[in-house]
């Protein structure tokens, strides 16, 4: 999604109304209870929250010009990788094997076998249509943010085709956009 993404794609940047800001904050707090203690630092109630509209119904949530979350239409908010790297335990994790790393970093969606092979790992609690952190065999930090197409259990048993959509990965356009001026 962010493969060819740059600031030129942003069609409008707006400071949102207080009520919208509250709603965004609440959805993020519900989706990532682990962030609750630092939520005030990340999304201060007093600082303006900017939502940048981008093509394909993509919205970026920014504070002080730094992209922190994104979502599609009214879908769940997902953290940027830079934010996830700081708070790695806020999301459930799936792990791909080493062989899959280069494909994920090229923007490919995540195929089931890359998660079910001995180098991969699945958290059985993960349901379908859930934002997840994509980790990699032998690596400490996440390399992508994914959105599951099937539950972890189905990924294991079906073991075929795309298990997780690759939403955002290291070195894609959003990764390179550390700030949006």
């Amino acid at each position, binding site marked *: 999604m962010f493969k060819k993404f740059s600031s030129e794609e942003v069609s409008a940047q707006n400071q949102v109304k207080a009520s919208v800001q509250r709603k965004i904050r609440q959805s993020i707090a519900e989706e990532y209870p*682990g962030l609750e203690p630092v939520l005030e630092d990340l999304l201060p109630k007093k600082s303006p929250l900017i939502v940048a509209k981008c093509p394909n119904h993509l919205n970026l949530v920014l504070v002080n010009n730094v992209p922190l979350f994104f979502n599609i239409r009214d879908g769940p908010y997902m953290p940027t990788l830079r934010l996830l790297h700081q708070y790695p335990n806020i999301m459930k994790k799936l792990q791909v*094997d080493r062989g899959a790393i280069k494909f994920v970093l090229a923007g490919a969606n995540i195929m089931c076998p890359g998660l*079910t092979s001995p180098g991969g790992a699945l958290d059985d609690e993960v349901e379908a249509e859930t934002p997840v952190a994509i980790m990699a065999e032998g690596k400490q930090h996440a390399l992508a943010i994914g959105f599951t197409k099937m539950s972890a259990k189905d990924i294991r048993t079906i073991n075929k085709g795309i298990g997780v959509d690759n939403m955002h990965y290291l070195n894609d356009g959003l990764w390179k956009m550390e700030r949006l001026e």
Partner: protein
Amino acid sequence: MAEKPQPVQVLYCGVCGLPAEYCEFGPDFEKCKPWLIQNAPDLYPDLLKGAGAGDADKVSDQLQSTSISSDAGSSKPKEEVKRLPGGKIKKKEKQEVIIEKVTRNKRKCITTVKGLDLFGIKLNDASKKLGKKFATGASVVKGPTEKEQIDVQGDIAYDIVEFITDTWPDVPESAIFFIEDGKKVSAS
């Protein structure tokens, strides 16, 4: 829960900007190398070994062969696997079938079967037969060393030997082994 988590400090590469551990997959590992030797020698110990300026493929291949898979890590048979320049594996292993029960979480497990292909058995075909016989899911998957193995859902380790020797008479019972607690145990 109420405690404030401290943000993790990630070491980002000064050259390509990725977390330093991903430089090897980055746009230009060669350019990152001098920075990595200076700032992250622990991540790429091979860079420090003399031929640090060698080619990236070589280094990443070395990394690959030293990386340990988390799941079945302790129990992999130590075989001489040589990588050819094209990334293909030169097979030097004995004709053996290795059966291992891998626990995926508390109550579920799969039984992996490695090495049937060394007896000229088509893995796809074998996987179908196993699935049918044990009324369960079976699939051919790439193992950690890029070798293919069959994963069968459930613990079937104890019935599988008879099934293999009955179905494929070319496989002697003496060539079938179990991995139990990290040890290789003969099935016969």
